[in-house]
């Protein structure tokens, strides 16, 4: 496939992510921050997000498995996750986090467990999407083209 086609594919894919609500405006902002002084900014931030989120999800799982659930701790983690995802622009993850927090306030164990599942699901979805997008970017760069803004 030649560069132009790859680029078109990339643009379409990215548009779909926005369309499906995986990404929001914030991600566009992130892309704007990437320039020649900071060429891998987006990749770095997203990687950090992955690390952070995985850690948080593990913590959440552990916390919710306890006999007596420390809702404050759970809330703290969810808050973190919400912050990270909103900074990245991972919209769907963020939305789930908001619901999650509400359940935490109500101390609704069922609700929390359900939300945890949802968050994990959304997270893995968005992770896959990001990974695909980055792969496409790599292909374009290898082919000698430049990433369309």
């Amino acid at each position, binding site marked *: 496939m030649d560069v132009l086609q790859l680029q078109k594919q990339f643009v379409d894919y990215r548009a779909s992510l926005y369309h499906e609500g995986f990404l929001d405006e914030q991600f566009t902002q992130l892309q*704007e*921050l990437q320039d020649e002084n900071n060429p891998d900014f987006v990749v*770095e931030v997203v990687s950090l997000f992955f690390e*952070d989120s995985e850690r948080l999800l593990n913590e959440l799982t552990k916390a919710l498995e306890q006999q007596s659930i420390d809702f*404050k701790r759970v809330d703290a983690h969810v808050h973190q996750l919400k*912050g990270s995802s909103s*900074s*990245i622009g991972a919209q769907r993850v963020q939305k789930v986090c908001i619901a999650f927090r509400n359940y935490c306030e109500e101390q609704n164990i069922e609700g929390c467990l359900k939300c945890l599942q949802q968050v994990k699901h959304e997270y893995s979805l968005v992770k896959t999407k990001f990974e695909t997008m980055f792969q496409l970017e790599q292909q374009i760069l290898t082919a000698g083209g430049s990433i369309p803004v």
Partner: protein
Amino acid sequence: MESCYCIEPQWPADELLMKYQYISDFFIALAYFSIPLELIYFVKKSAVFPYRWVLVQFGAFIVLCGATHLINLWTFTVHSRTVAIVMTTAKVLTAAVSCATALMLVHIIPDLLSVQTRELFLKNKAAELDREMGLIRTQEETGRHVRMLTHEIRSTLDRHTILQTTLVELGRTLALEECALWMPTRTGLELQLSYTLHQQNPVGYTVPIHLPVINQVFSSSHAVKISPNCPVARLRPAGKYVPGEVVAVRVPLLHLSNFQINDWPELSTKRYALMVLMLPADSARQWHVYELELVEVVADQVAVALSHAAILEESMRARELLMEQNVALDLARREAETAIRARNDFLAVMNHEMRTPMHVIIALSSLLQETELTPEQRLMVETILKSSNLLATLINDVLDLSSLEDGSLQLELETFNLYAVFREVLNLIEPVASVKRLHVSLNLAPDLPEYAIGDEKRLMQTILNVVSNAVKFSMEGSISITAFVAKSESLRDSRAPEFYPVPSDNHFYLRVQVKDSGSGISPQDIHKLFTKFAQTQSTATRNSGGSGLGLAICKRFVNLMEGHIWIESEGLGKGCTAIFIVKLGIPGCLNESKLPIMPRMSTTIHSQIAFPGLKVLVMDENGVSRMVTKGLLVHLGCDVTMVSSSDECLRVVSHEHKVVLIDVCVPGIDGYETAMRIHEKFTKHHERPLIVALTGNTDKVINENCMKVGMDGIVLKPVSLDKMRSVLSDLLEHQVLFEAI
């Protein structure tokens, strides 16, 4: 009763004698009794009398003597035994007291005498003190006089007044008969009588300066007594009176140039004036020491006052001179400005006025060229075109030069074909060269890049100018043009010591050498080549036209291109080589070249606004959002420090940080408390960084809390680049911001 014959008078009683004895004794007794009374009376009157008891003794002695004599009165006639006893007692007592008194006097009289001596001594001393007092008083008087004189002398800065006042006051103080001042003449060989107290002699009377008496006075800093007969002292017509004593003192005349700082001038120039003072004639007055001292002091004061007056005159003169110069300079400056303005106006007008017709001519001639023409017509049109091009070039040159001089010319940089430039030059020069039967060869080095970034038009102009000069000044032979990339060794040239080329990755230095075998230039003319309008004087070249601007313009272009141009020639008739080096950019580099190309425009116009070096501290626990915020700020040019806890924040924050961004939504870390502690840490308002809260939601509570702890603003997350930019600019401008949603 009959007279008793037991004691018979030895001598015959004489009645008269007896009577006289009787009376004398009586008076003696009286006196002897009254003397002590008198003594007592007077001693009582006097305040002090040290020898009272002596007096008593004396008194007793006298009284007893008196008593004796009194009792003696009764012994002239027959007296009883009682009387005899009383008489005897009295005599015995008298004898005792007399002896005692006599003995006492031996002690007393020397004492009394010494008192006398002491009294005399004290009287002498008193007289001496009186004399000294008199002296001191006189001295004080003198001092007062000096002060007064000095005051008078110093109260004016006019030389004439100073001198006149001196004489008058001196005359008054010392009660002088005559007082005169002799000043040295311009030639320094004579002393001229300049001022006198009473104007007896005509002023202008001169005396040669090398008289011994004058030398004597000049060589001493003291007032010297001189003879009234010497020429300087002969101020009064000789008369029958005894002239009073005359004293002369020197008055040093100090020049401005004598003054060294911290160094009282050595009186090396030895210009003195002479002051002569004459006491009144026929008076027995002598010059006292204190009067001489007074005179010396006054002479010094006069010297100082005169020098002050001289300095003042100098400085007044200097000031006037400066003012005149100032005015003249101002005028010159204004004239220069007018001239410049006139020239600029002229150029502005000419710029337009000249180019327009030129343009028309060239345009129409070229259009004409396109039409059907006979060969002759074509030739004519071509000539017209060539001439008008030349003229256009000339106009451009002149205008360029003036804008070059103003410094307003900027190179137009673009990518162009370097090879094409050389080819074009060659094409242009071929016809002329072939007419003169000159052979032109072009050598381009293989490593010369095909494309370069620079001002194509001006580069071509430069090359063309140099080459056409070579052609112009050569009658025969060949011209060779070589161009290559200059390596660092060949960049520096001994002839161009100020040229420090700095090679870098995006540029290369193009070196062009044009060698001709023409008339050459003598070494001393080389430096003139690059001066405007100056041409070397050989008549052969005079006819070849040209304004002499060419090389000057080339030099300026080359300088603009950060290069250097020079000409080498071995002398007249040996041809010359023109060499220049210019800096050109290499196209196709990712980094921007140093040439002033406009920076790549970002999507928004606002991205031009940045906050270079603004120190910002970001406190956020969440790694991802921290990174995003940092990325935002770094993109805006800030210098970002990240902290993730309140303690770390307070440790790190300093007065260098202008803005602190705190995420207040993080549970477990109290952003508000951090803000309060920052407030506490920086008591001075201007040192405190601006605190902005980053929050994920805005409700009134958060808003109020932020205001309560003294935050300067709230920003709602997520923050976009534009929002961050406007937040920072508002914040820095207004020092406060509430709220940026």
